[in-house]
């Protein structure tokens, strides 16, 4: 899906729709705050949509997931389920006896109490506890790698774009094109094979040394996390580089960069304060799309390294048909991504004084 970012890049922002072109010199520009309020409103709506989607998915599936879940839970527990658990499962995964609206209310009520059901594979642990055990690992892994990949890709993108046609461009651009097309988990497998098994530099699975305590625990977490993190950074930075490179090449030919050069400013100043500042802006609008890809890739990477994060939990849940955990994981990822997008929008508002209108 690299094309989407490339495509964005080449285009000027869309003009106002034909019927409302206003021939005037000054228009009231919406303030930053009202822009942020709009975005916040949108993300609240998106959160509601994610929650509702989470409600609808099991109910739209063939068969009856709630019946299957109850049967499985009874099998793993080897006894009749307590009525409270039954009510919870039916509220979350479908109740043939209630109408959809009642079910929806009951579902929202459950969510409000952070009740995501009971895990089948880890009976009787509540799903909320299961997913929250994986969350910090994934947040650390994805959060740090996204920042590193963004910074690395963007700065290299500025460099290659500024010296477009130069040697760096001739090497990095095709290489990034290739790298951004490689599946994350395949890179993970190669990394595991080379650095985990052949060279034996890093541990091949897990997120930490189970025997380590205190400082040693943290050191081990870094050592165990390095290979997964490096994989994600490696796979993700190419996309940022390509987008930024093309945007820089385009921006460098803008009049304000030409004028900055005519002003006799130092090249580094021209690049950083004039070209890069402006070339970066579309990266924020393309952030949502890119983040989705990184999350998906990171989940698969975790599986290769048996990293104890959300991805591994999801894999575990998928293989064991632990539907409650699956849904919990989805809800958690969806809400986290929305928060990340809101953060990206806030940064965008800070760096671009001309906050534009967009739905």
């Amino acid at each position, binding site marked *: 899906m690299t094309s989407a970012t490339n495509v964005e890049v080449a285009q000027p922002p869309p003009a106002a729709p*034909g*019927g*409302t072109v*206003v*021939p*005037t*010199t*000054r*228009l*009231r*520009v*919406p*303030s930053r705050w*009202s*822009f942020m*309020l*709009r975005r916040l*409103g949108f993300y609240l709506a998106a959160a509601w949509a994610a929650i509702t989607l989470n409600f609808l998915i099991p109910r739209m599936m063939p068969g009856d997931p709630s019946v299957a879940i109850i049967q499985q839970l009874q099998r793993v527990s080897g006894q009749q389920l307590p009525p409270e658990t039954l009510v919870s499962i039916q509220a979350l995964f479908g109740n043939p006896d209630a109408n959809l609206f009642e079910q929806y209310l009951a579902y929202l009520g459950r969510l409000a109490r952070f009740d995501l059901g009971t895990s089948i594979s880890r009976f009787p642990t509540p799903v909320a506890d299961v997913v929250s055990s994986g969350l910090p690992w994934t947040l650390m892994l994805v959060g740090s790698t996204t920042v590193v990949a963004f910074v690395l890709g963007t700065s290299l993108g500025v460099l290659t774009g500024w010296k477009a046609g130069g040697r760096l461009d001739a090497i990095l651009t095709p290489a990034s094109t290739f790298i951004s097309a490689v599946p994350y988990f395949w890179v993970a497998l190669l990394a595991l094979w080379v650095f985990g098994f052949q060279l034996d530099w890093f541990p091949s699975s897990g997120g930490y040394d189970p025997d380590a305590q205190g400082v040693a625990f943290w050191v081990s977490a870094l050592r165990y996390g390095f290979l997964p993190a490096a994989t994600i950074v490696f796979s993700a930075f190419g996309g940022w580089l390509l987008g930024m490179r093309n945007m820089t090449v385009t921006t460098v030919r803008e009049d304000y960069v030409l004028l900055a050069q005519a002003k006799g400013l130092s090249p580094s100043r021209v690049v950083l304060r004039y070209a890069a500042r402006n070339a970066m802006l579309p990266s924020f609008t393309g952030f949502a799309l890119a983040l989705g890809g990184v999350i998906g890739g990171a989940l698969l990477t975790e599986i290769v390294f048996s990293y104890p994060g959300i991805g591994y939990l999801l894999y575990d849940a998928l293989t064991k048909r632990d539907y409650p955990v699956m849904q919990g994981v989805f809800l958690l990822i969806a809400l986290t991504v929305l928060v990340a997008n809101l953060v990206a929008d806030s940064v965008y508002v800070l760096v671009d004084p001309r906050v534009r*209108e967009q739905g």
Partner: protein
Amino acid sequence: MSTAPVLSAVDVTKHFVVRGAVGDSAVVRAVENASVDLHAGRIVAVVGESGSGKTTLARMLARFYDPTAGEIRLDGVSVSGRPTRAYHQDVQLIFQDPFGSLNPVHRVRHNLDRALRIHDRRMSAAERRRRAVELLERVSLTPGEDFLDKFPHELSGGQRQRVVIARALAVGPKVLLGDEPISMLDVSIRLEMLNLLDRLRREDGLALLYITHDIASARYVCDDVIVMYAGEMVEGGPKDEVIARPAHPYTKLLVESSPDPDRVGTVSRDELFDDAEALGEPPSLIEPPEGCRFHPRCPFAMERCRSEAPPRTDVGGGHWARCWLHQEGRAHEIGESTFAAALTRRDEQVRA
């Protein structure tokens, strides 16, 4: 004018609502109470700066927007609520940008063929081809055959604009609206385009509206000129009357600001540009000034100008203006010195 107008705008007003974030919105008062009559065989020019509402007026006349108030009349009949499709058989608009008004993926033939076909479904293919060649030659693209299969990028700007005019003529309109039809063309070919418009009105009796920011080109081609400022029509009348003896301070400013090579050598450069430093800018159309919209920049402004909109005053020979000076018997002041000099004098008085 003895004949009835073909197309008229009667007191049309256009307000655009610009929606900001979370519910706040602003009204842009783009055109306020504008009236214009177009007669067969005559050219009316509407002159104004960007933001004066001249393009909005043209687009209302082309029925791309409906007026917020007032009405458009074709042959004396109000067109509101009537289908635009039939309307466009009589009224066509020529856009400013000939590069934008022809689809780059289609040949010249496609444009004319579609126009002819939509206009008359029964026309045969051979007949359409013959008509297309005729139309091209009508706009001086000869031999027309040579141009049928060209793509827009194979034509020069002037040729493109001629194709656009031919396409508009294909539906057999009574009225052509030109929205700055020459401003994107190279200076060397602009006059030939105006000569073409002039020929069309003479030979075909078309009624023309010529929208421009260039008062000299308006004078070259039109019969009557109307000056717009900040969404309002401030002055109108026979072109030479209006340009030689402006009856509104803004028209005077516009005329004096336009380059006039004839002045070269007769007046020194310093004289030409002295005092011209503080001519100001047009107001915002969201919160336009009370009273006369020009009063904040006007060296003759009085108390009354700040609160009451001036009425239309006829100054004879079809020449009119909306300015309180005429009501107050001070009209002669407009012609007594240059606008810039009057401005300087006012500022000195204020300081003193």
